[in-house]
């Protein structure tokens, strides 16, 4: 049986993990490579690096981070943030990333999804969708959740799938940071709309929330950042709990 995936997300700025805390046994909490290794020993199924570096110049450091991680961690690596063209895809894939996530750039130029899928295969093209409730559904937000594009999130999910997107990283702007649980309604509607894997993101705060998103929606994976960063829960604890609940996870 295909296992549900638990994915820690590392926010990386200028080559350093943001908000890193000192895990036991971790020499440098700000070092993305060490942090990725730590999550690996905890049983993470994948690692997502989100580059939140502001300047374009500093982004080269992300390539370096991916290269170093790929020499030590042998699981799928996804990189997102600041990806704007096919050349960025090539650079990250050559550095050792398995998947590359685009968000704003795909909204600005949706054919970037098609070009990247054509060139490198759908399996490495992830579209990150930041969605927020409106009066009549969910809209796609870009620029880190600051700009409402007016695009309907369900329609957008369908469209990127048809363009060749291989996976959707779905973040609920309403749930993100609340610790009140994943947005079940949003995750459910998107996973019923498309036939590609969905990574649910935003809002988890308890073990129960992980079970909820897998039991009540078609999500294939659940992603968390701060929850794992601040050791509120370990990946091992989450997986033990899910296994007890009868949800297939890799142990």
């Amino acid at each position, binding site marked *: *049986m*295909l*296992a549900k*995936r638990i994915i820690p997300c590392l926010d990386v700025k200028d080559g350093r993990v943001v908000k890193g805390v000192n895990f036991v046994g971790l020499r440098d909490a700000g070092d993305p490579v060490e942090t990725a290794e730590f999550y*690996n020993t905890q049983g993470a*199924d994948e690692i997502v690096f989100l580059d939140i570096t502001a300047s374009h110049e500093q982004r080269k450091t992300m390539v370096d981070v991916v290269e170093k991680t*790929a*020499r*030590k961690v*042998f*699981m*799928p690596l996804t990189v997102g943030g600041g990806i704007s063209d096919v050349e960025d895809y090539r650079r990250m*894939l*050559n550095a*050792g990333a*398995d998947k590359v996530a685009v968000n704003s750039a795909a909204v600005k130029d949706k054919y970037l999804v098609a070009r990247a899928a054509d060139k490198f*295969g*759908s*399996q490495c093209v992830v579209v990150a969708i930041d969605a927020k409730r409106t009066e009549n559904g969910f809209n796609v937000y870009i620029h880190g959740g600051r700009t409402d594009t007016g695009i309907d999130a369900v329609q957008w999910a369908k469209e990127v799938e048809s363009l060749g997107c*291989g*996976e959707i990283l779905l973040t609920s702007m309403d749930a993100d940071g609340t610790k009140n649980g994943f947005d079940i309604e949003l995750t459910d509607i998107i996973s019923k709309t498309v*036939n*590609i*894997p969905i990574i649910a993101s935003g809002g988890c705060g308890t073990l129960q929330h992980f079970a909820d998103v897998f039991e009540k929606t078609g999500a*294939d*994976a659940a992603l968390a950042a701060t929850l794992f960063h601040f050791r509120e829960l370990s990946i091992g604890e989450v997986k033990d709990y899910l296994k007890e609940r009868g949800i297939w996870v*890799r142990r």
Partner: protein
Amino acid sequence: MKTVIIDYGMGNLHSVKNAFEFIGQQVVISSDFKDFDKADALILPGVGAFPDASKVLYESGAAEKIIELCTVKNKPLLGICLGMQLLLDESDEVKLSKGLGLIHGRCERIADTGLKIPHMGWNDLVVDDDSCPLLADTRTGDYVYFVHSFKANLADKSNLCAHTFYGEDIPAVIGNGKNVFGAQFHPEKSEKVGLGMLKSFAEFVKQR
């Protein structure tokens, strides 16, 4: 020993190289037939579409070279993902195209059972042939990482070493009983279990 990763322009080979280096193996990426001759073992990786790969392998002469080395010289070969599918006789992905024919069977689309395609993520193995050298340290229930839309349909079930289940049984590890092996999943992305298989392959090559 020296392992050569065959470079034929399909996909990123660095992950495979990184994994072999991590387990302490000397490994080079090459498209030079002279390197294939000198290698103790060959790795045929690959991500992408079967027809493109088949075309490149046959037009460059690499296909004949690999077939010769694996049949006449019995050189060990491990095909990974698309590289495993290429070991078969043919594939109907996009259009009918020729494989290497080192293990008999066809490459076909995964049956539509209502599950998402591609089959992507960690899935557990059932070991069918525990004498397969690649599976020396692998047990039923071990998880490995898959990304694929096509699967092997083997002509001879004795070539099946391990399978997984995704709506139907899917060959995960195949072998010719001698020197040719294939893994449908990515050992280089399957952490301890995958690295263990690469170690077992290296051990097999060393013991010959």
